[in-house]
């Protein structure tokens, strides 16, 4: 802005308009002592006055009356990010994969090992579910960390392509839905609630634009922060880890607790 910066800045940031009359008089007197700056200041001021002539045309009563009717179907549509048929197919595939995984766990372990750990079929199922939960939480944490740590201030993140994150998030979203279904009878409501919170965030990530979608990213960052999602993920993983270390002992502890 050159030598006249201190004057022009007052015009640009609106502080000239907000000046007290006395303050303004002093300012203008000082400005008048520098003809070059005064000319530059006046030109800029007149440009701004001219710009005040700009108005927005009224699109008319019909437009306003049908505004909601035009926007409402788009909102409805935006609420359905995943095709239902695909969701059903993917859910079925996940169930089959889950069954295969359980079968592998049940039949691949030597019988004597099973006997030594004293695990029932239900215990094995729980271990499998816990492992799946651990995997999902781990993947969710990695994805969330990437989004939460994005620097939205410097503009350095503006060239990132989010298509991979969106796809990854979509997969996690489906896994979370399947896992919730498998855990629906579980007494651990906390993990189910956490999965629901993660589903919401994943849905938002899945709906991101491929290019830098700043408002949406800020909403996701704010949401993850407000709900302390990363902390909850860590806490849940620690608890599951502890359970996985000795499921038989945990089961006995629970029984003892109930008895006492």
């Amino acid at each position, binding site marked *: 802005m050159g030598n006249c910066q201190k004057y022009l800045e007052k015009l640009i940031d609106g502080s000239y308009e907000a000046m007290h009359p006395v303050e303004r008089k002093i300012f203008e007197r000082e400005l008048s002592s520098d003809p070059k700056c005064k000319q530059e200041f006046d030109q800029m001021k007149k440009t701004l006055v001219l710009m005040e002539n700009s108005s927005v045309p009224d699109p008319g009563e019909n437009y306003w009356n049908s505004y909601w009717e035009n926007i409402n179907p788009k909102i409805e549509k935006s609420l359905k990010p995943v095709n239902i048929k695909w969701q059903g197919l993917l859910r079925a595939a996940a169930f089959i994969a889950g069954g295969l995984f359980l079968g592998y766990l049940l039949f691949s372990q030597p019988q004597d090992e099973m006997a030594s750990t004293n695990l029932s079929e239900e215990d094995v199922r729980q271990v499998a579910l816990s492992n799946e939960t651990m995997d999902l939480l781990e993947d969710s944490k990695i994805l969330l960390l990437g989004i939460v740590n994005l620097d939205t201030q410097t503009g350095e993140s503006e060239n990132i392509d989010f298509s991979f994150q969106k796809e990854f998030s979509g997969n996690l979203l489906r896994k979370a839905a399947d896992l919730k279904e498998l855990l629906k009878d579980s007494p651990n409501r906390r993990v189910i609630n956490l999965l629901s919170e993660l589903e919401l965030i994943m849905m938002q990530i899945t709906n991101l634009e491929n290019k830098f979608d700043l408002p949406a990213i800020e909403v996701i960052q704010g*949401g993850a922060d407000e709900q302390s999602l990363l902390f909850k993920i860590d806490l849940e993983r620690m608890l599951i880890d502890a359970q996985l270390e000795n499921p038989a002992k945990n089961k006995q502890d629970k029984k003892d607790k109930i008895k006492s």
Partner: protein
Amino acid sequence: MTDEQKLIDRIKQGERSAFRELVENNKQAVYAICFRLSGNHTDADELSQVVFIKFFKSIPLFRQEAGVQSWLYKIAVNSFIDQKRKKVDKIMHLFSQEETDEGTFEQTIISEKSDPEQATDASIIQAHIDQAMKKLSPKEKSAFILKHYHGHTIKEIAGAINTSEGTVKSLLFRGVKKLQQALSFYRPELGLEEK
């Protein structure tokens, strides 16, 4: 709790009629900023709908202290900047169109110089302002509109377009300079000397 906060709470509880109320309350303000940003009705209509849809999606996480209108404006300018970034090909096409328009624009200027009375016509001034606004980058335009037509402070603009206050001042300065140059044919009004 203000009426706005009550409205947001109702929307968060899934009350669709409350969201309709919010749209009805803010549609004109949102349309106005979208029109100023995009410069025509079709794009303003599309952009304003995008703003409300994005707002609706973000409502579970909306922080009340921000104020609904500020948040809507923030979504509007960022969606506009984002759209401009995405449509590089289209922009290139528009640039070539602008070059053609510029010829007509300058011809109009010349004809107006010979007829000063015509230059006072509000619609012509409006057309010149619209053309001048096209010279601004999306960020310069967003900063200028928020400052001069919506009364935002430098700090608020910095928050809305996620940049520093210093950058906002630079954007505004560059923007006003471009406008000044584009509108320089209004020499007597702008206090510019004839070359």
